[in-house]
């Protein structure tokens, strides 16, 4: 028993050391964002000898942080909402219709997951450019197209645990499909909706490549402004790191409050 306790202690110590190692990049980012240029030059690893907040002020302005944050928020929230509404509808319809056409359509949705973004990126931008859709609206539509496959797949799977007798009972009571879905089925799909929401929001909030091809400067999201900001301040690490710290803060706040749901959502998305 004594040995078991000692083993546990050793494992605990290893775990703590590993966690510190994992966090060390964040530690270095944060401490150096409070240093002056000279401060970083003379001392990279330790805490600042004199703390300065000027870096954050300038990074905040140069990143156009409020604007970029609002753009990111708007695009993420609208895209994810649309993905949830339309994918749940399709997942429901495809699961309840057992015909050959329905199965074939489901396979089409799943097969689309095989196509990597880079394989369609060039013609996509060319086509949407021709119809003048390289703007936030066009981007949201693209997110629906790229995001719906996995989401429909997850909703389709979740439907198997909701008995069809529920639909039948509601039909007898005189409800139509539209009412059955929104009043009875959609609320029961809530757990999978949370998963779909988490997976898509992590992807869309952090996405760089697609918005970099679609959005103009005034609609830029946080990753886009981060890219330009970083290019502007290469070798001025004190400013660059303050910008990076700013960009990460919203994510850490959300993670702090919703870590259980986030980890569960990611697990469900990967294992199913």
């Amino acid at each position, binding site marked *: 028993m004594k040995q078991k306790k000692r083993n546990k202690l050793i494992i605990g110590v290893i775990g703590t050391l590993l966690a510190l190692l994992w966090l060390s990049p964040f530690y270095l980012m944060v401490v150096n964002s409070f240093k002056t240029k000279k401060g970083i030059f003379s001392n990279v690893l330790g805490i600042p000898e004199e703390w300065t907040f000027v870096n954050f002020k300038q990074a905040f302005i140069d990143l156009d942080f409020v604007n970029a944050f609002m753009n990111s928020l708007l695009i993420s929230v609208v895209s994810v909402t649309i993905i949830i509404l339309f994918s749940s509808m399709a997942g429901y319809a495809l699961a309840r219709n057992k015909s050959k056409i329905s199965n074939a359509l489901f396979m089409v949705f799943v097969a689309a997951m095989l*196509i990597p973004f880079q394989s369609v990126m060039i013609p996509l931008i060319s086509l949407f450019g021709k119809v003048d859709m390289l703007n936030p609206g066009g981007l949201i539509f693209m997110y629906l197209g790229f995001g719906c496959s996995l989401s429909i797949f997850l909703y389709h799977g979740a439907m198997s645990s909701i008995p069809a007798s529920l639909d039948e009972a509601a039909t007898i009571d005189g409800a139509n499909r539209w009412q059955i879905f929104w009043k009875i089925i959609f609320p029961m799909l809530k757990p999978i909706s949370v998963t779909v929401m988490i997976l898509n929001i992590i992807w869309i909030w952090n996405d760089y490549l697609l918005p970099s091809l679609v959005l103009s400067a005034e609609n830029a999201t946080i990753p886009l402004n981060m890219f330009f900001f970083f290019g502007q301040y290469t070798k001025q690490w004190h400013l660059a790191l303050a910008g*990076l710290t700013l960009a990460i803060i919203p994510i850490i706040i959300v993670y702090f409050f919703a870590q259980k749901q986030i980890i569960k959502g990611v697990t469900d998305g990967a294992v199913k």
Partner: protein
Amino acid sequence: MKNRSVSFWLFITPTLISLALVVFVPFIYGFFYSFSDWNGLKATEFLGLANYAELLQDEAFISSIWFTIKFAVASIILVNIIGLGLALLVTQKLKSSSILRTVFFMPNLIGGLILGFIWQFIFISAFDAVGSALGIEALSGWLSTSETGFWGMVILNVWQYAGYIMIIYIAYLESVPEELLEAAEMDGANSFKRFWNVKFPLVAPAFTISLFLTLSNAFKLYDQNLALTNGGPFRSTEMVAMNIYNSAFKEYDMAYAQAKAVIFFILVAVVALTQVYYNKKREVDL
């Protein structure tokens, strides 16, 4: 829901249209234009396989494929070993288990672009500082050679992705029945034997999932590559995704870039279909 019923089509139309316009139409369109001299706006001539023939001579493209494969192999091995190690660690019923999970998983919530920039600082400044403090010369000048650029990419990817793969292993490890482990302990199996003979076979399905997730992730990687090395020095750390992007949006060679994109699709699809095949086979075996 019947095929002919209006509601069936009403329910699937929004996603069907968006998927068609965003994925399938560009895919087919791009496939045809990869056989032409398309410049992004129009094509004047059918070139047959000329673009594809040119690919075979394109050293930068071929070396980007090799770099991607080397990167994928190194990543798969390290991510899975470390991811499984972390999963075993945090399922030991420690008091700190849930905090540890949170920490190891955290990098996955942050975009590859930002992670790449942070690690650029770590490799260039922090490595240098540690190196000169400890007198280890190998720690200075990181990312300035193709060797350190390669390992820099691998380290970043392992740091980010091991926590993600950990989550998958945890899901399987936690489904191992407690009674089974207790029974094994009663029979005198030590902790290594309990892992190897009891847990390991039950966790095997997680390997297939994790292996292919790591593989397809490695193939599609772009943001981290852009932020950490931007392909440098001298395009020696350029991965396939970045090579395609540069052909299209830096050299404006659209038809040629699309030919690369078609080859890229075939590579990724072969990987994914192999996974489907193995999963099916496994289900039959069980």
